[in-house]
């Protein structure tokens, strides 16, 4: 069950018209491609995707799931938007309520285990291994955790564990963390346990219906067996403009653990049909990731360019993420920025490095042009 209703409001204009899982990433992908590819690569062939906020782009992107080989006769991918019952429309009020309202969907398949995922994260993970661990530990619930730097532990939901990795305590954003194992928002539940506790949680009018805040603490209070599954590798929550930019730049690092070129664990995505990229005689490209359909006539340094981007003569693009079909004119200089999908950047635009990563907007371009006119 893949939670894909996230609004991602800290991504500002990038999530104005689409949900966070649909935000472009890595020169070709959308964030949700990583979780969906993990599912198909882990041998999971039945996936429910729970959508709510701005679902249009996400719905048409997922389609019948063929890009991830999830167009199956039995199971496959099912998009689960909120729906109305005889008396009222029930919006998903929290992560737990979203799953609760789709218990019927899960019951159709009568599974032994249910994997609850978030569509907001960039990582590669074999869920089958986690399931083996869950089985071996004879747990009711397994929660995937990752070691985070101690100084950042206060930003995460932290799991306190005993020597056997059994979770003794869960603290959301602790002021004085006792541990540095952060929850990755990946849960494996024994299906009867999930059903029982979601029903209980639904009956509790004081609950905010959130897995981390309500369901997990209730399971701990009732002494169910919760174990932490330690994950090692690349994992990133790209919740802000800064972290989205950083995650893209990570891909340019030769030592980056997130290898997109691993043919044994491919990241699948909907492949748009573009001709190969054209690098002109006067162009210069250094340490970058460039997708099909790009026409490059300027200088590209340490940048990530999505499909269909054009960069005009004399332009310099440095440490910047350029999203699909953006058109960059001539003699443009852009540094440390994110240029959103379809944006047209006029000739001569200059965006210099500042303290934070700049997410270019039409208003900003308008302002720059006005200043130029006055000058």
């Amino acid at each position, binding site marked *: 069950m893949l939670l894909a209703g996230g609004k991602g409001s800290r991504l500002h204009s990038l999530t104005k018209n689409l949900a966070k899982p649909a935000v472009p990433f*890595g*020169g*070709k992908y959308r964030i949700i491609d990583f979780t969906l590819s993990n599912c198909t690569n882990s041998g999971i062939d039945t996936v429910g995707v729970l959508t709510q906020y701005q679902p249009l782009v996400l719905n048409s992107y997922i389609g019948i799931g063929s890009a991830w080989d999830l167009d199956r006769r039995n199971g496959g991918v099912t998009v689960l938007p909120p729906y109305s019952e005889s008396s009222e429309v029930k919006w998903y009020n929290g992560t737990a309520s979203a799953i609760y309202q789709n218990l019927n969907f899960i019951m159709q398949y009568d599974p032994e285990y249910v994997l609850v995922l978030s569509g907001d994260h960039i990582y590669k993970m074999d869920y089958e291994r986690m399931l083996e661990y869950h089985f071996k530990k004879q747990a009711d619930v397994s929660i995937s955790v990752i070691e985070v730097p101690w100084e950042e532990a206060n930003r995460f939901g932290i799991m306190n564990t005993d020597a056997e990795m059994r979770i003794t305590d869960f603290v959301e954003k602790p002021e004085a963390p006792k541990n540095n194992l952060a929850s990755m928002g990946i849960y494996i539940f024994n299906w009867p346990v999930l059903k029982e506790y979601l029903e209980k949680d639904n009956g509790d009018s004081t609950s905010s219906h959130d897995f981390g805040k309500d369901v997990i603490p209730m399971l701990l209070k009732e002494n169910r067996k919760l174990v932490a599954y330690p994950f090692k590798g690349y994992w990133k929550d790209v919740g802000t403009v800064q972290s989205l930019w950083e995650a893209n730049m990570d891909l340019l690092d*030769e030592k980056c653990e997130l290898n*997109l*070129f691993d043919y044994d664990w*491919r*990241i*699948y*995505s909907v*492949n748009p*049909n573009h*001709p*190969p*990229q*054209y*690098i*002109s*005689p*006067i*162009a*210069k*490209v*250094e*340490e*970058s*990731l*460039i*997708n*099909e359909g790009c026409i490059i006539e300027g200088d*590209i340094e340490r940048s*990530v*360019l*999505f499909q269909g981007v054009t960069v005009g003569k004399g332009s310099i693009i440095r440490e910047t993420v350029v999203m699909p079909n953006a058109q960059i004119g001539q003699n443009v200089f852009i540094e440390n920025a994110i240029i959103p999908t379809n944006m047209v950047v006029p000739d001569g635009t200059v965006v210099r490095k500042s303290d934070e990563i700049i997410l270019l907007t039409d208003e900003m371009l308008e302002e720059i042009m006005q200043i130029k006119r006055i000058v």
Partner: protein
Amino acid sequence: MNKRVLGVIDATTYHEGLKELMIHRSLAAIPFAGRYRLIDFVLSNMVNANIESVAIFPKFQYRSLMDHLGSGKDWDLNRKRDGLFFFPSSIIEGIRRGIGSFSHFAANMDYFQRSKQEYALITNCFTVSNMDFKPVLDKHIQTGCDITEIYHLGKSMQMYLVKTAFLIDLIQTREKTGYTCMSDVVTDIYHTYRICRYDYHGYAAMIDSIESYFAASMELLTPEVWNKLFQKDHPIFTKVKDEPPTRYLRGASVHHSIIANGCQIEGVVENSIISRAVKIGRGAVVKNSIIMQKSQIGDHCVLDSVIIDKDVRIETGTVMTGSRTSPYVIRKGTGQGALMNI
């Protein structure tokens, strides 16, 4: 043009001059422009002209062609009604002169008889162009000719538009008339048919030798040719692959080149066409060359005017030089080491 034309692609042609690229594949399946196969052009042109039923007649070595086309999904030809049909030759035929073997068609007569399309467009599989077939049909209907033959720069493109019923008649009477293929009909000076000519003025390259293959590939580097072949509202479709974007590493220097996805480049690339998932090692120099899918060029290699077929591994430090008129060709799946320098 909706639902009115059958597409018939003759994929049986064997060009002796291309034999080094045809050892494992048919002419139709020869890689081109970094991510396409030759057949993609004519097939996409048909799809863009709303042709919804396409029959492909291959002969030998059609495994790679079938693998490429699959169910026709990438061309939107996986339809419940009509769609993509594949008719491998069931009889061993002798050498033929032209496009559209009537005996090969006769062996699959049901296809023509069951189809409801009024017209049939018979084409070769080795023309690189982005041609609009709609005006060809308009002219054919307007003139009322029996056969409309498409010409480019005064030469026949070996593409013919006919009424399906007329084609069936040609196939059925082939023993009496002695015609074995479409070109027999149009070149017979005693025929009694009305044959018209349609002149195509856009870009087209017919690939029939290593020289023409190499020349057409290098022409892609001219933006005018590129823009004529790859148009947003008239796309060339191909089998999609889940390759990541191409990665330029430290030390990469790329100029005047076409690069497909999934490549990892650490060397110098100039005036070249690089296909999907190619690796170019540190300090390597690739100039005026075509490198096909998944080939690996070792560190410090120097390649000039070569065509490297798929899955070739060039060992570190290898130097290879061909010429523009006679590029050096490395066959699919082979390895080339420093000791094999030429």
